[in-house]
């Protein structure tokens, strides 16, 4: 009987067209993901060669002054690209994956990023997470809105109800067929993704796959609930499309708007202005003031004293340091607010499964705001390490050639993979069970009604 019900479902030209469209969109999304990963991998490979060459040229052109050399010399920190980000690009195409910084004031350099394609900011990427989160539910709605309702409307259900010993079980089997087909498409696309994008089959990929499965089951539960209400197929279609719009467009936009208003970030501009002003005004101030503050920050360099020359690299880098020090408050506030945005989004997302899925898929793919904030923290640490490494050489006027420049390598930031699986799965399981349970009760009450 299941085989025949499956045949009836799959032979429908509408069903086959829908599945073909979904598979095509899925494959296109994987190609886009592959292009993204190839670009990221190419950039990471090129930056190694590029940095080596840049260091060689800088050393060649500025062989006499360590301070001047390091004024120009950038060092690269690469935000390691998780291959899962090919499935959920998130913010990774907006935020730079390679941050090149000199040991001068950091704040202005941190946000000095270019955008590959500003149009993408408006449209978003057609990555796999888009196909999963937006398109899969549409097809689930198309496959389930008329379940039982249409059969009731055209009279088939009367014969079914008289013939069947277990009409309730039959409805569950009809739902199960649709679940099986959609999960089949999902598994096929994920298997293809693992092959095309070279994604290792590990815990993160497993969590990504399981989240996707739970997300589809959540949508099936919603559709099951609506179809159990014993309304017409047109009512079901309208209700489900409204839920789709609410959960995927209206709610996330409202949440985003609310968070942006609740946590405005004027510090983004203030930090840059403050840092520049703090640095530039030091040119007109007594050196003693600058050096006192610098030594208060780095007491280990006090022995270098107050420079006598009208210009010295010690004084220059102290002025640069003041730019960062005096804008530190704004910088910390900016980071805190971005973190608050992330944390608040996460909390609200517990109640909005679609938002939750998007956030956590990005988290698993290390392409979300959380990853970007941790990368910027790593840039801070990387920059500080470089300063502490080169300050003594600059202040002590070490010869440029005494340093083994060829040993300097591009460094990589590896974000730890999140393992909060309970937090990841819980909202989807909860809402899935809730709507599935409501559907179960509704169907039990209504399955014998015409």
């Amino acid at each position, binding site marked *: *009987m299941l085989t*025949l*019900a499956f*045949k*009836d*479902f799959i*032979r*429908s030209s509408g069903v086959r067209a829908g599945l073909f469209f979904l598979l095509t969109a899925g494959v296109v999304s994987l190609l886009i993901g592959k292009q993204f990963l190839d670009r990221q991998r190419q950039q990471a490979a090129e930056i190694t060669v590029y940095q080596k060459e840049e260091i060689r040229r800088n050393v060649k052109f500025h062989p006499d002054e360590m301070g001047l050399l390091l004024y120009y010399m950038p060092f690269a920190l690469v935000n390691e690209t998780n291959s899962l980000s090919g499935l959920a690009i998130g913010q990774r195409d907006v935020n730079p994956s390679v941050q090149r910084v000199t040991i001068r004031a950091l704040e202005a350099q941190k946000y000095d990023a270019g955008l590959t394609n500003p149009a993408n900011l408006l449209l978003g990427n057609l990555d796999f997470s888009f196909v999963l989160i937006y398109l899969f539910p549409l097809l689930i709605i198309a496959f389930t809105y008329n379940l039982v309702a249409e*059969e009731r409307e*055209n*009279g*088939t259900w*009367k*014969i*079914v*109800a*008289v*013939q*069947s*010993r277990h009409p309730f079980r*039959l409805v569950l089997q009809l739902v199960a067929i649709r679940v099986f087909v959609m999960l089949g498409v999902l598994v096929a696309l994920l298997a293809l993704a693992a092959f095309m994008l070279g994604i290792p089959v590990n815990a993160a990929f497993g969590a990504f796959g399981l989240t996707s499965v739970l997300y589809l089951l959540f949508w099936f539960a919603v559709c099951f609930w609506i179809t159990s209400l014993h309304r017409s197929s047109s009512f079901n279609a309208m209700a489900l499309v409204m839920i789709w719009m609410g959960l995927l467009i209206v709610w996330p936009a409202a949440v985003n708007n609310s968070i942006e208003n609740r946590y405005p970030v004027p510090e983004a501009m203030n930090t840059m202005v403050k840092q520049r002003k703090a640095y530039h005004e030091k040119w007109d101030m007594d050196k003693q003031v600058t050096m006192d503050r610098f030594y208060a920050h780095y007491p280990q360099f006090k022995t270098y004293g107050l420079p006598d020359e009208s210009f010295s690299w010690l004084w220059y880098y102290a002025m640069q340091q003041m730019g960062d020090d005096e804008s530190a408050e704004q910088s910390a506030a900016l980071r805190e607010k971005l973190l608050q945005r992330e944390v608040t989004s996460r909390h609200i997302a517990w109640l909005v499964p679609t938002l939750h899925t998007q956030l956590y898929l990005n988290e698993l793919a290390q392409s979300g705001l959380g990853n970007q904030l941790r990368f910027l923290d790593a840039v801070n640490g990387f920059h500080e390490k470089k300063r502490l490494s080169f300050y003594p050489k600059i202040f002590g006027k070490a010869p440029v050639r005494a340093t083994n420049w060829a040993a300097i390598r591009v460094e990589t930031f590896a974000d730890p993979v999140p393992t909060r699986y309970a937090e990841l799965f819980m909202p989807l399981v909860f809402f899935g069970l809730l709507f599935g349970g409501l559907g179960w009760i509704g169907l039990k009450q209504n399955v*014998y*009604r*015409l």
Partner: protein
Amino acid sequence: MLQAINLTKRYIPGAIPALDNLNLTVSPGEIFCLLGQNGAGKTTTINLFLGFLKPTAGQALVSGLDVASHPLESKKSLAYLPETVMLYPNLTGLENLKFFASLAGFRHPPDALQDLLSQAGLQVDAHHRRVGQYSKGMRQKVGIAIALAKQAKALLLDEPTSGLDPKASNEFSDLLLRLSDRGTAILMATHDIFRAREVGTQIGIMRAGRLVETMSPQALTASELEAVYLQTMNSPH
């Protein structure tokens, strides 16, 4: 056996009943034809026997079981053929028959299913065609085959010959007679007084929810039956 005992249905409490105190019995091998205008209560009667409606008062019994209190058990003895048989259009006639038979818990071998379709009058070359390409008459035949496959003790028919051509209607009458010969109790709601006279063992005329006349068709000619019917319809309440 089908039995209605003081069967009453009001869709709205306090309103005029759609079915008022119906009493009838259809024994095995009998074909009871319910005649009446639209809204006379024929379909309500069928739906009460099918358990799709709950009676306001009285009982609908199928093989001695009260439908309202034993909905699933009573359906085991029932088959139903609506005015328009709507099947699964993407399945063939044979597949539809297999599907509906298995819903009822029957696992007939393919040959037996084909035989049932042929018994119902569906030409062999149509067995493997999708039902979406069938005419109404062909779908009715699959509906009959479904009823045959269930080996039901009672068959409920709601305007089954409506829209069928004369040849298909004749074949359908033959089928009903064969089923009644096998001992099936048949209750048929219809507008077709000539068909009712041809196949019915009893004819009941319904008006405004009441069974106002019951007669044996053998005692009347077709024109006499028509006269009785029109007279009943036109007489005051």
